[in-house]
């Protein structure tokens, strides 16, 4: 799996590619938290467009960042959900907490 992290205004855009599972989770959690701090971002946008597999470990990273960011008054959004990820995302209950957008620009508009 690979992560591409980019800051745009107040938002950290996190583009996740590949298998978002236990192996990826630890690295992602550390990398995102560190970049959140060093780049001083307030919100996070998870672009899941490149995700080929996700399970509770990957979803746990998203939910954990949601808790952290919202505690500091920030917002979290998700975009570009591939069809194979839609059902598990809904089943997890995350979509009741975090808004999902078709693409990055729609999500960024809401986060601004």
């Amino acid at each position, binding site marked *: 799996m690979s992560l591409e992290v980019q800051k745009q205004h107040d938002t950290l855009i996190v583009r996740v590619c590949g*298998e978002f599972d*236990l*192996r990826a989770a630890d690295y992602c959690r550390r990398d995102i938290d560190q970049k959140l701090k060093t780049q001083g971002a307030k919100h996070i946008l998870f672009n899941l467009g490149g995700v080929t597999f996700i399970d509770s470990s990957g*979803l*746990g990273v998203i*939910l954990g960042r949601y808790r952290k960011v919202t505690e500091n008054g920030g917002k979290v959004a998700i975009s570009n959900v591939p069809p*194979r990820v839609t059902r*598990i995302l809904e*089943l*997890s209950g995350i979509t009741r907490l975090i808004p999902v957008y078709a693409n990055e620009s729609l999500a960024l508009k809401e986060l601004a």
Partner: protein
Amino acid sequence: MRLRNRMKLEFLSRPENVSLARVAVATFATEVDFNLSDLEEIKVAVSEAVSNAIVHGYEGKPTGTVLLTATLYQNELEIVIEDRGRGIADLARALQPGTSSDPERMGLGFVFMKSFMDEVDVWSEAGQGTRVKLVKTLPGELRAQNLAES
């Protein structure tokens, strides 16, 4: 239940082996005409059970042994995942949706296993280890065909 095929996989409790386990089972299952979403669901369920063995059973220590057995019967695929880790003291509680012993986790593993498989059975004893049995019924058409053949 007629036995059609079986495989066993033994591996260390390392995070990189979670993907090994689910890919091995998915490959094993391609012998049957599961549709793509069935295969995706099987992969998630295997991933959850194996991740639990590593994270909870062996508490993240990479030296434990996880045993996976996949068996293809006439009308179902059965997957058993076993660890000799710390076990589950209160199984009824652990099986409740949204219950986790780890504040960083959401307690979704068993929720996904139950939603994606037709049967989930868990045996566990504190200090002894845990065994999870996952069953997926073969796609309807094929099942009927197999019954006719037998």
